[in-house]
């Protein structure tokens, strides 16, 4: 599904190198987690994959189902099936949540040569998916993320994921700022989307999210590289021992 090879990235406006040769392969239907200390490059990796400005790829490649991801505009990546759940979902005053979702869905469908979804069908689709995430009608009517609590914003990200039905979902610290109940709700939302054709990359600081979204593979990232890869046990090891042991092993 997603294949990242020797990815090197620096910040566009300075010489600071952030990613120093990331290698990662995620198969269809797999859930991978990336853990790592602050500043290890986890969020940068997610932004570079989604196509945010301000980063320069100096070496390496990233492909989604064989297509060169790095050559595509952000909207083309989305239509190709990539989805990034933001760590800090953006507030957009003046744009209604429903308008936003419908515009996004139909833009993706149009790009893929599929017919647009009618207003009536769309309403039904969203209501059904929103209900499962306990998102009420009022939240759908309000401008995108404006006045939403931290938990509401994250649930709204998962709602977008559910409506857009991407192939490759990247969750950037979706657990940050959530209380236990909100985290469970988000995790349930994610789990309900798991299937053989959809893959996940879950970026997190803490093991606790992984109690709810069980990963197949866990990677540890530090100083812009994957320094260790293992099974779910690796996350537990980090939780009890911290990153220090792993970091010293790596150097």
């Amino acid at each position, binding site marked *: 599904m997603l294949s990242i090879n020797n990815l090197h990235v620096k910040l566009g406006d300075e010489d600071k190198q952030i990613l120093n040769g990331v290698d990662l392969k995620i198969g269809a239907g797999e859930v991978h987690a990336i853990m790592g200390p602050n500043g290890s490059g986890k969020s940068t990796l997610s932004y570079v994959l989604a196509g945010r400005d301000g980063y320069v790829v100096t070496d390496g490649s990233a492909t989604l189902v064989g297509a060169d991801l790095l050559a595509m505009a952000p909207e083309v990546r*989305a239509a190709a099936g990539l989805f990034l759940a933001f760590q800090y979902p953006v507030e*957009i005053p003046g744009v209604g949540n429903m308008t*936003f979702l419908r515009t996004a869905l139909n833009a993706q469908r149009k790009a893929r040569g599929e017919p647009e979804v009618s207003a009536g069908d769309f309403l039904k689709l969203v209501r059904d998916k929103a209900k499962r995430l306990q998102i009420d009608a009022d939240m759908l009517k309000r401008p995108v993320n404006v006045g939403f609590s931290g938990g509401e914003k994250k649930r709204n990200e998962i709602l977008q994921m559910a409506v857009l039905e991407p192939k490759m979902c990247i969750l950037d610290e979706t657990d940050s700022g959530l209380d236990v109940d909100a985290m469970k709700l988000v995790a349930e939302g994610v789990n309900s989307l798991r299937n053989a054709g959809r893959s996940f990359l879950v970026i997190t600081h803490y093991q606790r999210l992984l109690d709810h979204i069980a990963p197949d593979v866990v990677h540890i990232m530090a100083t812009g590289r994957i320094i260790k890869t293992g099974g779910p046990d690796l996350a537990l090891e980090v939780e009890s021992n911290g990153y220090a042991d792993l970091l010293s092993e790596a150097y």
Partner: protein
Amino acid sequence: MGMIQSRQDQLAARIAGQVPPLGLADARADALDRLAVTGLPGKRDEYWRYTDPMILNEPAARKAAVFDASDETPIFGAIDRLKLVFVDGIFDASASDPLDLAGVQIDRLAECQGSDHWAGAFYGVLEKAGQTPVNRPFAGLNSAFAREGVLIRVTGKATKPVSLIYIHKSDSSDVMLHHCIKIERGAEMTLLESGLAGARFNAVLEVELCEGARFHHIRAQGRNHDRHEVTHLFARLAAKALFKSFTLTANGALTRNEAVIDIRGDDAVAYVAGAAVGDGKFHHDDTVFVTHDALRCESRQVFKKVLKNGAVGVFQGKILVKSGAQKTDGYQISQALLLDGDSQFLAKPELEIYADDVKCSHGSTSGAIDETALFYLRSRGVPVSQAQALLVLAFLAESIAEIEDQAIAEDIRSRLEGWLARHDH
């Protein structure tokens, strides 16, 4: 002294050979007398600091190519309305509906002598009052010389809007229109204005709202590029009156819209709003003066401009709260979205308050498109041009929200969508 002389000279050149129409002679003579004292404005006048009046001062209109807007359905086309058509500033009876609407008396300024008509004691009165504390010479010029316009007296609730439609057929037409509207106690009407009036256009609209009267005004200026336009809207509100005016401006080399709102009666409400979009040779000036002179009144000014390729936006907005106008609630916001580094927004918000128990706020901002929001939309699959249009419309939405009628608001919104699609580069 030299400057004063030059103002008089400009006036003399501007009006040389022109004779005021015969009707409403006293009001016109008075306007001319006032004008003789002030002359025409100059660039060094504080009130014209951000907008050069030179082209408006010139004796003849500069040529403006006749604009073909047939790629768009006419605005307000779906609204049931009474249509009054002016071609290059001359009323066209054959293209207009009969001047017949229940509860509304409509006459032509061109046919009004004054003495036996309600407008005889009305014409120019609010314009004259609006010359203090700031001179507005183009409004005086209009009162002195305008031959055409409508005189509307509303005694009931108008069943449909009165729609003034301007058509531009000559590339050198120098148009002046003067409209007078009096809305009697408890009466209500909506006035629509649309179309391209001429190469140069000077418009005055005087509106008097008696107790409990309601007036809605929605104006669409555009889309011709070469026009030079100066408009004045004078309104006076009695107790419990409601006044709402919205202006859409698309394109235009020079547009100066002045609104002078005088709130005289308690518990009255006045909203003025505008959305302006310009690309390239575009200078757009909103100059607003709201005076609160009564208890518990509310006023709002909401102005938004989208500017690109060197377009210039100006906002001069003032709220004056006179002593005794307690419990005033005044709000003013002016914002510009600069789509590139070449465009400019010049804003002068002012509050002058002589009462101690009032709530007044003002804000003015200019900025670029929010890149984070743009990326967020694109990351969900929305193409960059569509994402930009969504964000621009979202920016303008607060001003469009000032329009009460949803069908009209939606029409305005779709015009802006069309403009954005045409200027998407």
